[in-house]
């Protein structure tokens, strides 16, 4: 399989050279050698059909052929040795703790803002700033029940944080499904490895949610609030609810009476203690947010304020995962925890700063420019891959609203061999790791390795045609 494999620029996570795998991949490399190409094809098709049958699809925006298609999948896993994972884990726990402290501060005394560590204007004028939650004593002071932190490795293999997703990170269900399919279709791959199991994945998730119950009941009622089946992440929602054994509800299934949230059931109203919501802030409660929202629950915010229900994730988290705020996360770690960041950021230039702007404008063909309030790989310029016209178009947009943009050096993302067009090709990957906070902060032993399957592409977002790989965290070695 690897006869024609090319190890070129960038860091290849599996292959040191054309025929020499790195330590963690030696056993997999050997197993793969036993497979013929037609056999791999057959297995690949089997895997795809399982995905399709289970309805694991993802909405691709700007796709005229239809909105849904199966999530592209690749069977070469991303393998993370135990020691490497331990480093990542410590770095992520540290980062999420600091981000949580930041949110608690922003919605209370704003000390970090008044001290000028993070520019106050950047936060309080953000469209995600949510005055409605100011001074609300939220259960366990927990703002970030689940976060998806995107990590990349640079030319030397060093991990960096690329992005924090603190609102409604999706992808948990895919992680589980990928593993399920891999185990079923490629059992031989696991033969020589001891991979961290995902078996307690959903019970852990559920107990973290239960720990948020403000009443600290024995057996709290937890529900998952979804916008409904037309949402692009509905698969994620229904799958998670089913696996955790909690009710999947829509806004119309809930009602607030005397500041308490109830679920309408066939035998009357049942009090709800914890809401894992997958609805955006603006649609949660038409009384206090968008009044035209039909998805939310009138009075929910007031029940939350009264301390009668936990909402995960918290509201207003968008002020902390904006691309402009990202640059300040290392400062937050130093400010709140008095520690040095374990996982570094990618250097980031703020285009609102005249000096940095001038520097960036003179180097557009080398840099990546991102719009601070966009996600999913949209509204970005990848200098080295852009046409002259595109660069000029972006230059105009930047000059029109410089504060809306940040720039970063183009990081040559690491590659993992990927089965495309009947052979192996090194494709760029990143890793979305999931951090869960209940009583404690923990990182799920795995994650969604996202792969850019288009030749040379650096965009791994599934909404733009990226695919997924299973992520193996090794128990030893």
């Amino acid at each position, binding site marked *: 399989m690897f006869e024609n494999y090319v190890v070129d620029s960038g860091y290849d996570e599996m292959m040191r050279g054309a025929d020499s795998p790195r330590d963690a991949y030696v056993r997999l490399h050997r197993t793969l050698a036993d497979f013929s190409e037609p056999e791999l094809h057959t297995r690949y098709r089997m895997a795809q059909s399982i995905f399709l049958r289970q309805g694991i699809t993802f909405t691709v925006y700007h796709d005229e052929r239809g909105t849904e298609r199966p999530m592209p999948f690749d069977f070469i896993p991303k393998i993370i040795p135990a020691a490497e994972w331990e480093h990542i884990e410590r770095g992520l726990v540290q980062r999420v703790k600091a981000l949580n402290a930041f949110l608690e501060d922003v919605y209370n005394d704003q000390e970090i803002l008044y001290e000028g560590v993070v*520019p106050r204007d950047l936060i309080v004028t953000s469209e995600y700033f949510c005055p409605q939650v*100011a001074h609300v004593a939220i259960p366990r002071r927990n703002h970030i029940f689940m976060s998806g932190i995107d990590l990349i490795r640079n030319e030397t293999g060093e991990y960096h944080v690329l992005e924090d997703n603190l609102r409604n990170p999706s992808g948990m269900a895919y992680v589980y499904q990928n593993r399920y399919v891999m185990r079923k279709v490629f059992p031989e791959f696991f033969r020589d490895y001891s991979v961290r199991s995902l078996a307690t994945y959903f019970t852990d998730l559920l107990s973290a949610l239960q720990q948020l119950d403000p009443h600290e009941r024995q057996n709290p009622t937890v529900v998952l609030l979804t916008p409904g089946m037309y949402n692009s992440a509905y698969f994620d929602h229904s799958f998670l609810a089913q696996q955790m054994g909690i009710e999947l509800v829509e806004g119309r299934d809930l009602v607030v009476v005397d500041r308490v949230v109830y679920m309408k059931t066939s035998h009357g109203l049942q009090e709800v203690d914890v809401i894992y919501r997958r609805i955006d802030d603006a649609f949660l409660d038409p*009384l206090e947010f968008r009044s035209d929202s039909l998805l939310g629950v009138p009075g929910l915010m007031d029940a939350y304020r*009264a301390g009668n229900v936990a909402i995960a994730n918290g509201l207003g988290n968008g002020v902390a995962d904006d691309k402009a705020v990202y640059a300040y996360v290392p400062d937050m770690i130093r400010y709140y925890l008095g520690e040095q960041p374990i996982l570094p950021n990618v250097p980031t230039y703020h285009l609102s700063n005249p000096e940095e702007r001038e520097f960036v404008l003179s180097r557009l063909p080398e840099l990546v420019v991102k719009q601070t309030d966009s996600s999913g790989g949209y509204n970005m310029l990848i200098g080295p891959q852009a046409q002259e016209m595109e660069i000029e178009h972006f230059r105009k947009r930047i000059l029109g609203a410089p504060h809306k943009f940040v720039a970063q050096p183009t990081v040559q993302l690491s590659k993992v061999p990927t089965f495309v067009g009947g052979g192996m090709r090194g494709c760029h990957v990143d890793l979305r790791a999931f951090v869960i906070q209940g009583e404690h902060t923990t990182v799920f032993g795995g994650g969604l390795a996202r792969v850019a399957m288009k030749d040379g592409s650096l965009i791994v977002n599934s909404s733009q045609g990226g695919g997924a790989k299973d992520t193996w965290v090794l128990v030893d070695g």
Partner: protein
Amino acid sequence: MKYHILQVNQYQYAGGATESINQVRLRPYTGEGQACLDFTLDLQPQSKCAWHKDYFGNEVATFSIHAKHSQLTVTASADVDVWAEALPTETQLSDAMSGELTSTEFRRRYAEYLAATSYTALPPEAATAETDELWRASRDALDYVRRISDFLYTEFTYHAGVTTVETKAEEFLARKSGVCQDFTHLMLALCRVHQIPARYVSGYLYCGENTALRGDAAMHAWVEVMFPTLGWVGVDPTNHVFVGSRHIRVAVGRDYRDIVPIKGVYRGGAQTLETSVRVHALETAGLQ
């Protein structure tokens, strides 16, 4: 000056309403220059209120009525003492004050009140075309605020019924007629364009025998601008005056959205609303 205020809001629902939940920002403010001595909020049908203080410092009551009802009456009654004095018209900013006004630290501290909102956003050309000349002619930022108030008062017409609570500053700028809410939003926009922190104030205006004043038949709205040393300075562009003891403050925010006096969500048919506001002076000595 002591006032008694009585505001009655009566909602009628065609075919009745159920699962109604509402938020009220009607309790007059207590703080610098003003104290709310007594306040009652009466609800028919009866309901229990839960109070909280919002991000901007306003007292908010939330209540719900689940059973079917065909009308809802919200009666707010308050006794308020106001001793705030209007800023002398000849007040000037010192160089130090002007310097602090333009400092990064000051701008960050009042950042909420410098950013455009959906109500106050104007196309940049429109904003500068309207204000460039006034800005250049102004001695300082406070003088500019005064000129803007004068400009709005003389060039725009107070006319009820041509705009709604949804009307944006940009539309008012083109139409040149509207009510106090529109004057206020446009004034906020024109102050913020020149980096003067400005916030929306809702409240009441005591007109008494002074028939030249506009705005006592309903709730009133005006602007507060923030200057170093002076603090929040009230300016009423609908009447072109600095705010003194005739203005009774209820709530403040970035724009109308933050101070909506009564808002609600319910199941049912269309609603109609009748509001009456009466402001009574309990004493008149010392009224400016």
